[in-house]
């Protein structure tokens, strides 16, 4: 099993008063204009009017970046759509983590001020949601979990450098999903990013 349409979500720290997702629209436009990411990004879609929805989305050619509010938990969701043809699952996984963590680190730096005392944006680093956005390649099943678990464990081991737990999430209709939770002391984003290889290189078609 080697799915390619992978997703990773980092959740915003609930203790920090994050700006509304629409406040990041200028940030995403700037990323497009200044070619901030090492990939082709095209447009910004605003769905902030939909409760618990995809929020504000930076639409790319190979992947999208959502300021996602699904289930009422704000965070950054990176969704790989295409690319990395022929790569092993482990390589796809590493790329997924590098892109997500890199974008998250950039967002933390560029988050507009909220005016609140604890304003800004900070992502929690001990809880991540991994999903496969492809019901054909990776049905939401125990078989899928068994097939992907070794690579996910290896990645979680690199990421947390300490104890962790993997838990399957979602019902039969949902995408296949796994919650990765580090149970040790959390590290900051830049540390996590360094552990998985640092910022991504130019995207591969």
């Amino acid at each position, binding site marked *: 099993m080697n799915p390619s349409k992978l997703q990773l979500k980092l959740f915003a720290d609930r203790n920090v008063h994050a700006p509304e997702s*629409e406040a990041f629209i200028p940030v995403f436009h700037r990323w497009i204009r200044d070619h901030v990411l090492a990939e*082709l990004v*095209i447009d910004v879609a*605003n*769905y902030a009017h939909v409760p618990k929805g*995809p929020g504000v989305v930076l*639409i790319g050619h190979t992947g999208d970046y959502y300021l996602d509010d699904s289930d009422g938990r704000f965070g950054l969701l990176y969704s790989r759509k295409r690319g990395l043809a022929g790569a092993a699952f482990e390589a796809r996984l590493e790329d997924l983590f590098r892109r997500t963590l890199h974008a998250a680190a950039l967002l933390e730096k560029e988050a507009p001020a909220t005016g609140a005392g604890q304003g800004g944006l900070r992502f929690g680093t001990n809880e991540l949601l991994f999903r496969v956005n492809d019901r*054909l390649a990776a049905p939401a099943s125990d078989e899928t979990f068994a097939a992907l678990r070794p690579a996910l464990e290896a990645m979680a081991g690199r990421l947390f450098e300490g104890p962790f737990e993997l838990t399957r999430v979602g019902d039969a209709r949902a995408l296949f999903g796994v919650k990765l939770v580090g149970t040790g002391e959390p590290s900051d984003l830049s540390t996590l990013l360094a552990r998985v290889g640092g910022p991504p290189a130019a995207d591969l078609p």
Partner: protein
Amino acid sequence: MNAAKSWKEKLGNTVPEAWAREIDVFETQIELRKKGKIEEKLFAETRLRRGTYGQRYDNGQRHDGAVTQLLAYPSGEITKGPVTLWDAPGMQRIKIPYGRLTIAQLETIADLAEEYSDRILHVTTRQDIQLHFIHIEDTPDLMRRLAAAGITTREACGNTVRNVTGCPYAGVCQTESFDVTPYAHAMTFFLLGHDDTQNFGRKFKLSFSGCKDNPCALANFHDIGCIARTRTVDGRKERGFEVVVGGGLGSVPQNAQLFDAFVPETELLPLAQAMSRVYARLGEKQNRAKARLKFLVKKLGLEEFKRLVLEERATLRPDPRWTAFLADLHVTDEKPLRAAGPLPAGPYPAGFDAWRATNVVPQAQAGYVMALVTLPLGDLTSDQARLLADVARRFTGDTLRTTADQNLLLRWVSEADLPALYQALQAAELAGAGAGTLTDIVACPGTDTCKLGISSSRALAAQLGRELTGSALAENPNAKGLHIKASGCFNACGQHHVADLGFLGVSRNVNGRRVPHFQLVVGGQWTNNAGSYGLAIGAVPSKRVPEVVKRLAGRFAAERQGDETFSAFVNRIGKKTIRALVEEMQAVPPHEVDPSFYTDWGDPREYTIDDMGVGECAGEVVPLVEVGLADAEREIFESQILLEEKKPAEAVARAYSAMLVAARALSREKNSNLSNDPNEIVAEFRKHFCDTQLFYDPYAGPKFAQYFFRIHDEHASAKDPEAVHQLIEEATLFVDAAHQVYARLGASLGGPALGLAPAATVPSPAPAPGVGA
């Protein structure tokens, strides 16, 4: 258990055979286009006819607020249509005939939105659902999954019969003459893919309404509007339709005209077929801005149009489908899931009363009501769609309906269940009140995703929603029922002409800079099936539109007399008064004083219209004969593949089919009643092209035609691979000869001018033709 390698394999025969074949064909066409073997305009029309549409920035350019930058899509210069790059994300329109959607279909679309789009299902003003940011190469699987759920995207765009819309209350409405659902259903599948609807110069829209007075189906701005009527003859009640024709919005809005006050139900389908033929034959093909039926009706005059249609009707070959559906008009009936019962005594959940006041509509059936699910800007998420499916499964049964207000409708809700239903909707964040009120604002996609958008209708609607929701004005009983609709450009997909307060996006130059504006259109009539259109008053800067709305609605709230409509109010106080109010709001401060006026709502970039592209809603005018010849070529290609795959019998059958398709494409230009029967095709081809020697090659004489006759006489048989190979060669030569004949005869076959190769003569679209679902 072996996992399926593809959706095609996984879905297997759950996809209806004919639809599976169509999608396979489309997939082949995608491959052929990538190899440059299909001309780009032909491919554009092909994909549009599958509902696969372009989106903003698909020309590979995007203005960043200062300069236009190139978007370096990896496929480079490969295109999927004129100035439409292959890798650029596009929109998939999903036709939902008369808005009827099953739970399984809703769940399927939810999955597709998640896996191929951005997790948003967008309900359009023509009851479709659209998914955005989709790659062309994902569309065949997307279509297979839809087809397995009973949905085809065929003819969702392009110069075709678009989604047949219908009153969402049909069958449960208190004021309808009868349930129009089975008629809309029959019309949908009768015209879908019909030969007589394949050669239009522009799109063609039909609508079904159960009654004349209410707005639910907006019959008066459709090419054909069908309004249910009954009459009594010799003591027997007969069903029929008041048929209106030639309506339309766009830059030249036109109210439909009465074609016939009562068309018997048995005559409805043949009449639509006859109208299609007249439109295909006489409708404008070159000037895209004048190609809708409304222009033909105007040009000919209603009486002449009517005469031609009735004359055409008399020549139609009888078709059992015209009346077969009448044998079971209950095929689309819905049964309630739960027993009817009275609303339980309160107390009710917080917000219930307000929601019930605006979102609950009584049904004709005692004890049942309908519940409108208000969708902000017509959007819901995949998660919400699945939760809504659960709600329907629990409370109402198998179907929902989309509405022209961009909402969803649950029918057959037992009143006894209303509080529990409300709470279930609340859990899905779908219990917003205000359906059909001042805060339930309709908007087309505008500059968010549309290539023709001038101003951001969606972001304006979102801003208005923010400012009005919960305001005293929105709760004022005099103003509460006002309708606001916004279109991103004059093509009017937001249906602004029939709003109390309509807005259409325009731009203005102020001090050498572009400033987004909206033209204010007031007093449109939503009722009476969109009975009359509003009048443009003047353009105001986008950033001042909320203030304009508050002033106008506020004045209406304060000065309304009794049940006076907004339209009547406008007439009473006079357009000059409205104009004076607008003039006060037209000033644009200098850029250095307030640069926000020089950006649009929801977009921090300095405003520009440089991102506008060439619209695709008008499709490409590709004569039907060209479509047939291209199909024949594709079948030749497929026969070669089948031979390579060592399937000789299938290869022969496909090669023979290619010849039949080519022969029919030519012959149908001489006999529009030609069926698909091979014997009839051969006979007609022989009569019109061989007996006349039109098909004779200057050097080879009748040789290529004889190939066709021989394979037909031999029942498409070939024994050994060599013979199969030879037969495919002959089929190739025959199809090529058909092309040559078409090139020679050109205009006399409904095609391009004499002597020009078909691919080179497809006319270019005029700038900014009308758009819409």
